[in-house]
């Protein structure tokens, strides 16, 4: 395929527009001289040139399409995050009973940069130690509701089994979804050798019989439709770069909260499973 002949060599200096112009002129000449203007050969030439162009565009996107997809996924996740989280529980000062039941490490104020026991969110020194109030009005099924319910259940279950506060859960290890590989993007260019290879590929295909050329037109057209669809999608995603930047900056906090709470809920549920076994 033509795409296999594409790379971005340091010596490449032929742009796709120039390449397309040159091979179109070449193809017109071949069609005219070898077939006297056969419409089948002309169609084959057109569809093959279109294939080269579409593969070029697809290759150009190959290094960046994952970034576009990740951006889109994150924005969708961020837009849904508040809905998934639901309202937060109200909070109250931790009591000695909360400590005994494993709902808080201690009462009073944080003496260092500690963690809130329920959400495992860092708290700075001197801030009051609070726990989520189990009488809070929460939306059933929301992450906040499930987390509070499962956290309290875990504490009570552990207490009923061992007559001691539930132990601290392991530290969360969440990969920042905003961290991505850095793609090296550059518009693809062609060397003279690559241009020659593509031209030879075109000529070899045009040498086929009319019957084979007709088959070639249909199969290449099918491939072109798939490429066109993929490129259109990438083009649409590319056009949203500015939107993604704004949205991702706005949604970072809520995406982080959702990731954090979902991971913490999974930890609590695993511990409950162990206790219930």
């Amino acid at each position, binding site marked *: 395929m033509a795409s296999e002949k594409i790379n971005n060599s*340091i010596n490449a*200096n032929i*742009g796709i527009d120039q390449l397309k112009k040159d091979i179109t002129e070449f193809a017109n000449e071949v069609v005219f001289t070898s077939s006297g203007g056969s419409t089948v050969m002309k169609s084959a030439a057109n569809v093959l040139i279109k294939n080269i162009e579409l593969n070029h565009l697809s290759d150009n996107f190959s290094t*960046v399409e994952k*970034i576009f997809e*990740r*951006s889109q996924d*994150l924005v969708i996740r961020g837009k849904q995050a508040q809905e998934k989280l639901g309202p937060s529980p109200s909070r109250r000062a931790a009591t000695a009973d909360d400590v005994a039941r494993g709902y808080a490490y201690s009462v009073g104020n944080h003496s260092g940069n500690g963690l809130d026991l329920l959400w495992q969110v860092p708290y700075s020194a001197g801030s009051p130690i609070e726990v989520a109030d189990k009488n809070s009005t929460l939306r059933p099924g929301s992450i906040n509701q499930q987390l509070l319910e499962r956290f309290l259940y875990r504490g009570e279950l552990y207490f009923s089994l061992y007559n001691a506060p539930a132990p601290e859960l392991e530290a969360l290890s969440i990969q920042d979804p*905003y*961290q*991505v*590989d*850095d*793609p090296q*993007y*550059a*518009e693809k*260019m062609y060397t003279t050798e690559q241009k020659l290879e593509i031209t030879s590929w075109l000529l070899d295909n045009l040498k086929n019989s009319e019957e084979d050329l007709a088959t070639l037109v249909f199969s290449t057209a099918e491939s072109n439709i798939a490429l066109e669809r993929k490129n259109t999608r990438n083009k649409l995603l*590319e*056009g*949203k*770069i*500015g939107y*993604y*930047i704004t949205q*991702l*900056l706005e949604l970072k906090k809520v995406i982080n909260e959702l990731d954090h709470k979902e991971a913490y809920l999974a930890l609590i549920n695993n511990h409950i499973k162990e206790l219930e076994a």
Partner: protein
Amino acid sequence: MPDIVDVLRKLQAAGLGGDVPPQEVPGQSPVRDSASGDFMEPRDIFHEGKHIATLDYNPRTGAWFLDTSELLKLSRVPNAASLILAEEAK
């Protein structure tokens, strides 16, 4: 690994997703090649370990852009052309 927002800004600066005003790209001030519309790359030219000038280079077309003060600085270096050619080959 870089933050996705920084990567998107870099792609914008490389010409994807439409035009980006230079001030929207923190830490960078891309200059466009007025002939091709491409963003230029700033390239530092050194001579014997000393910085001579920062020139704008279009890697796609191979074009270099310099103003008269940069031209003057380069004229004081005996092998300016070979320094630029070496930078072009990087």
